[in-house]
């Protein structure tokens, strides 16, 4: 819906100046560390098979294409081709994600480090954020002078708040927890285990992370591994970590899966789950699977960080719209 002020930016010009300075700061950080900036296509023949991510479909002269939800797969093709450490700053697209912390088009910073463990990469992410603190507006009183990094295992954080081990919990126990926390009623039916964990973790666990602290949540349940390797000595968990600043989820990283067959099996499992849920099955990225098979991906860790949310924290903005030139309602 257009109104008479729809042409106006959703961010102040002052916020846009800070945004530009922070983007420069990000590039300087990686330049200093010898990480190469790359650009990969936004439009692809393949779409993410992730059950909880939709892709915009675009009709072209050469058939359907999909707007990327993250540049992950083409960047991994570059890694398989030998590009080495690399980063990308780009717009990505996730349909129907709109709210205080969401805009369907947003800026993602994604980078890969060869021979890094996921813990190494989380430490580097914290270093990046700290390097950007001096670029924040001087009048942001919410900004801490330093920003300590505290790591906690997913299951420990969950247990400490809710008294239940998320790995061992049954669907029934989770249902009771959801009900006791006023998050889901029995009349609404049974939530599948991973959905129940998502709701409990986001509403009853991460809500309590300390404000002036970076919290790294490590060792996600294997059922939520996505594209991460499982932990060798603890295969019930994955080498997947998420970084929170206060209660805001900023970044998600993996010790990257490099096994082509395992990767194909996970894509196929996604599509089976999509079909069972009545969602469309998505075309898998065959070029990526080929790259894993033929090129071979180096041992590496990768992480994706929501740049607009980082801007919100640095600029002390209440809404994601306040740090982007034009939000979806003005686009």
């Amino acid at each position, binding site marked *: 819906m257009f109104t008479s002020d729809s042409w106006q930016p959703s961010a102040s010009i002052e916020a846009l100046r800070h945004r530009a300075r922070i983007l420069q700061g990000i590039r300087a950080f990686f330049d200093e560390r010898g990480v190469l900036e790359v650009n990969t296509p936004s439009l692809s023949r393949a779409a993410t098979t992730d059950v909880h991510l939709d892709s915009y479909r675009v009709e072209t002269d050469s058939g359907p294409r999909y707007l990327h939800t993250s540049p992950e797969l083409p960047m991994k093709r570059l890694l398989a081709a030998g590009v080495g450490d690399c980063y990308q700053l780009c717009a990505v697209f996730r349909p129907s994600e709109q*709210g205080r912390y969401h805009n369907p088009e947003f800026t993602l910073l994604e980078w890969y480090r060869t021979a890094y463990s996921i813990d190494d990469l989380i430490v580097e992410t914290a270093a990046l954020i700290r390097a950007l603190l001096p670029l924040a507006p001087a009048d942001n009183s919410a900004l801490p002078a330093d920003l300590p990094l505290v790591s906690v295992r997913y299951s420990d954080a969950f247990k400490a708040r809710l008294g239940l081990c998320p790995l061992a919990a049954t669907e029934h126990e989770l249902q009771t927890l959801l009900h006791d926390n006023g998050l889901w009623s029995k009349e609404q039916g049974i939530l599948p285990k991973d*959905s129940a964990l998502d709701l409990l973790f986001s509403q009853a666990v991460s809500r309590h992370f300390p404000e002036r602290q970076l919290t790294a949540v490590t060792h996600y349940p294997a059922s939520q591994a996505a594209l991460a390797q499982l932990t060798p000595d603890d295969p019930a968990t994955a080498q997947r970590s998420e970084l929170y600043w206060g209660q805001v989820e900023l970044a998600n990283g993996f010790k990257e899966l490099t096994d082509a067959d395992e990767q194909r099996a996970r894509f196929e499992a996604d599509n089976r789950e999509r079909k069972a849920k009545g969602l469309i099955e998505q075309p898998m990225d065959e070029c990526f699977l080929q790259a894993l098979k033929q090129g071979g991906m180096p041992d590496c860790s990768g992480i994706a960080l929501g740049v607009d949310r980082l801007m919100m924290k640095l600029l002390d903005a209440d809404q994601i719209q306040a740090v982007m030139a034009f939000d979806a309602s003005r686009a």
Partner: protein
Amino acid sequence: MASFSTNEFKNGLKIMIDGDPYNIVENELVKPGKGQAFNRVKVRNLKTGKVVDKTYKSGEKVEAADVMDTEMDYLYTDGEFWNFMDPNTFEQVGASESAVADSKQWLKEQDSCIVTLWNGEPISVLPPNHVVLEVTQTDPGIRGDTAQGATKPATVETGATVQVPLFVDNGDLLKIDTRTGKYISRAKED
């Protein structure tokens, strides 16, 4: 039956929950980077005014509530129903005591109110923000006493009791804010 997807959720949207009409007062998308998306909403029960939290899986469909806010003039009460008229169509509706609830103490004949209709039936009534009511009972006024802060109770024509300055007398007309139930000033005769 009309319905809304959670993607259409926004403040003010009227939806049905467990057979009652609700108004969305807050909507937040909860979407982990990887994982199931939910909408956490705060909704107000339009019959009771109670606000509760509710969670939906994103993409879920929720039945729309056929609820309309209509400007109507208050006519009279027979003790069982409070009667209102649409000044455009002259259609009349009777609101029950539970629908007028606390608003009834501010209802003065001919005042224009917002009547919320659900399937054509009144479920709540909002009086004007400001009403002018006559004092029917208060202790004798102390003329000239305009000292700040000192108050006494006064009953007005609709039966409501408000705290008023000491100089207010029986028969005075008072301007009252119905949202706070507080005295604003004395009002002049029409």
